[in-house]
């Protein structure tokens, strides 16, 4: 007997219905959501550039990197560069991931959603780090080049890393993690496709 809804349409409707409350909850908790990726981004920057990264400050969802890089300010004064990043811009994969798991009625939600959320952290930190690096190594290149020692190759790498972290990773990472942890839907779709061949 033909089912009233295919596996895909059922998944799509449920994903939409779960995405709205998941996004709303995530947005309400945004100040807490930003803490883990902000911590990781600061740790990575401190480890990679210990000479000029002093730490970071998180206000709401905006994280400011505290650096020892000096830049000329207005009126000939010298200031320290403090690039900012909105952590939330790179963290919306979390509600999408939760909606996908819920939409496929995944078994073991209690461990898959927390594990998936942790697996998303490096991708979110990537976005934050490259947003800072873009401001330091590309936009303020003239003032910081002698201090950071970034060459042309580094600058291109930073620009590509930023684009990757802004345009692809926030949406792609949750899909890949979801598929890695639960590919039951893909199997169901393939079976449904083969079964429909005789119709």
């Amino acid at each position, binding site marked *: 007997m033909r089912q009233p809804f295919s596996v895909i349409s059922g998944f799509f409707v449920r994903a939409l219905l779960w995405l709205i409350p998941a996004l709303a909850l995530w947005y309400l908790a945004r100040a807490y959501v930003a803490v883990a990726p902000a911590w990781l981004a600061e740790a990575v920057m401190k480890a990679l550039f210990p000479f000029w990264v002093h730490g970071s400050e998180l206000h709401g969802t905006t994280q400011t990197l505290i650096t020892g890089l000096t830049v000329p300010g207005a009126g000939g004064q010298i200031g320290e560069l403090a690039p900012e990043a909105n952590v939330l811009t790179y963290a919306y994969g979390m509600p999408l991931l939760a909606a996908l798991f819920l939409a496929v009625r995944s078994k073991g939600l209690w461990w898959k959603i927390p594990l998936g959320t942790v697996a998303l952290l490096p991708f979110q930190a990537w976005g934050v780090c490259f947003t800072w690096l873009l401001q330091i190594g590309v936009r303020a290149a003239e003032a910081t080049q002698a201090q950071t020692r970034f060459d042309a190759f580094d600058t291109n790498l930073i620009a590509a890393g930023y684009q990757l972290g802004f345009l692809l990773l926030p949406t792609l990472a949750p899909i890949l993690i979801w598929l890695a942890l639960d590919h039951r839907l893909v199997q169901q779709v393939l079976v449904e*496709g*083969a079964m429909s061949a005789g119709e």
Partner: protein
Amino acid sequence: MVRFFIIFLVLLVVLFVGELTPPIQQWIVVPWTTLLASASAHLVQTFDTHVISYGKVLQNARTGVGVSIEAGCNGIEACLILLAALAAYPARWQAKLTGIVIGFVAIQSVNLLRIITLFYLAGWSASAFEFAHLYLWQALIMLDVVVVWLVWMRWVARQEFRRAHLDASGGVAA
């Protein structure tokens, strides 16, 4: 699955880096984005005659409120993800090509809806626009990519099963 992931990721990085190069930006990305703005304006003009487009900007000529279609909002990255996913999946090239053409149309149709809704949200509420622009529509476009990919895989499975059945019964596959 591991083979699919590896091919998909390698292809995606190659396509993405290619997209960022100046010739591709100049000859494909910018003209496509301009075309999107123009197509959005034509669609909106059927019910709102004050809307115009110039370059990659969609604007209300009366109020001055408008949106500029930037990288990430032209649907190209979503199409690249789909292209890499279809190419990485073990299927016949004819099926992949069909999926790429239909998938492109499906993603860009939803993207037109995104541009138009964001255009009206921008005129209504800055915070609603920001939420929909940065978070909601990003997730919805990716969900669209996943659904198109699943529908295509279902179709491929159906075609392959029919072909295998015909081969087994001594028939000729179409």
